[in-house]
């Protein structure tokens, strides 16, 4: 009874959660150190990174373009619905471009890829953990970081910003097309609006966000997969945790980066 009372004490539960969270942060930090240590083994990770980059880029392109096209289109439709008569039409161009480039492009791509890439990485590495493939690699005196983690992280850090560029372009294009369906808007109006509030930093901001999201989408699932518990249940749990935690981190990063880079 005493034990049950102790474990249901909210202070104990909160304390455990904090300690557990700190332990995760510590282990993720150690993984990042391993990644930097393994970077010198270029011969090992570069060929594998090309394969991973192909998987991320080509494999995700369709879903990324689909989501960004819908996001751009819906943004334009809603702008058309809200702006009728009260504001000049070119503002739709401003709204679509700024919404897509600053927020929807990187965040939607980030969340989609957290599911697609994050789940895959956690499941792959988790399966390798439970089938002793990672132990086998270590037993051969080889670094799991340079064979398994660095290729995935580097490929993500390169390809996810590239996908965000595609998403931004397609999202804006879809927004232009959709806006012209519901409003008497010309290409020139849209372009004028798009340029009116445009800062070159907006494009960099989109890429900086994409880079940070890429780190979350690759490192967290690799960590979750790497520390998978026993059996199929362990792999399932790691995969779910990878998708949920990388999605939450993306949203947190979104807030932090907006505050730091746009409002400082």
């Amino acid at each position, binding site marked *: 009874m005493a034990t049950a009372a102790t474990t249901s004490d909210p202070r104990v539960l909160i304390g455990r959660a904090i300690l557990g969270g700190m332990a995760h942060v510590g282990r993720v930090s150690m993984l990042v150190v391993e990644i930097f240590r393994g970077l010198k083994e270029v011969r090992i990770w570069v060929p594998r990174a090309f394969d991973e980059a192909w998987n991320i880029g080509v494999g995700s392109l369709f879903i990324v373009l689909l989501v960004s096209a819908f996001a751009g289109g819906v943004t334009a439709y809603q702008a058309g619905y809200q702006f009728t008569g009260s504001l000049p039409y070119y503002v739709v161009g401003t709204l679509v471009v700024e919404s897509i480039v600053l927020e929807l492009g990187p965040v939607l791509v980030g969340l989609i890829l957290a599911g697609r890439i994050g789940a895959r990485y956690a499941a792959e590495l988790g399966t390798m953990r439970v089938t*002793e493939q990672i132990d*086998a690699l270590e037993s051969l005196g080889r670094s799991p970081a340079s064979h398994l983690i660095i290729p995935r992280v580097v490929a993500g850090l390169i390809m996810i910003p590239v996908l965000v560029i595609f998403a931004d372009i397609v999202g804006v294009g879809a927004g232009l097309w959709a806006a012209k369906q519901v409003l008497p808007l010309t290409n020139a109006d849209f372009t004028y609006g798009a340029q009116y509030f445009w800062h070159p930093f907006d494009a960099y901001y989109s890429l900086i966000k994409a880079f940070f999201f890429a780190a979350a989408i690759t490192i967290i699932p690799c960590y979750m997969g790497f520390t998978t518990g026993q059996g199929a249940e362990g792999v399932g749990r790691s995969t779910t945790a990878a998708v949920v935690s990388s999605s939450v981190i993306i949203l947190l990063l979104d807030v932090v980066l907006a505050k730091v880079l746009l409002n400082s």
Partner: protein
Amino acid sequence: MIELRGVKKKFGDQVILDGVDFVVQDGETVALLGPSGTGKSVLLKHIIGLIKPDAGQVLVDGLHVAKLKRKELAQLRYKIGYVFQNGALFDSDNVFENVRLGISDETKYSDPDYSRERVAQVIKLVNLPADVIDKYPSELSGGMRKRVGIARAIVGEPKYLLYDEPTSGLDPVNSDIIDGLVERLSDELGVTGIMVTHDVRGAFRVADRLALLSGGKIIMQGTQEEFLASENPKVKEFLERDFENPSNAAA
């Protein structure tokens, strides 16, 4: 020489190893026996540094495994070949790449002529057909996967070979082939071996000496004759159970 001194290991509240003392001299093959779940594989993983002991020492060639730095541990691992229970082959690589990863010398690993020749050599040594090198693990039978695992373990010319249940999950014919292979490798390559198994007949065939792990401790070490003559009830129970098991008797 491999030496374990008072090695203790717990996972949560469960005591797995409770003060294991165990020595393997250079050149000998020792079978580590024990029922499933007694920590035989855990013990083996201590030797290669995949698991660190809570207490005690694991010494390989006089080196304290748990205290080695990263590079020193990698160097030590080059001297040890580890055969995993289910092969632990890399799914996404073909047999050639799987085996090639075991070549510890980086210059030789990077030399395509050497690595192709060396991989072909060990594939032949483990009695696999030459065309297997282009196949993926999913295209191989259980027995073939085990032999590829052995090929990967020996390709780097290790001084020690650790076998984790090399015959588990195999039919009697394939078990016999693997036992014969372990015996032959021991003779031909002169490696020091530890074979974790619960198959007493296989152990009797392959090992110079046997050790029985029970209750987290090595309760007996000795030759086949000494085991058969033992009056220790746990030893007798283990031997009788194995010899009464029809699947083992067939082997």
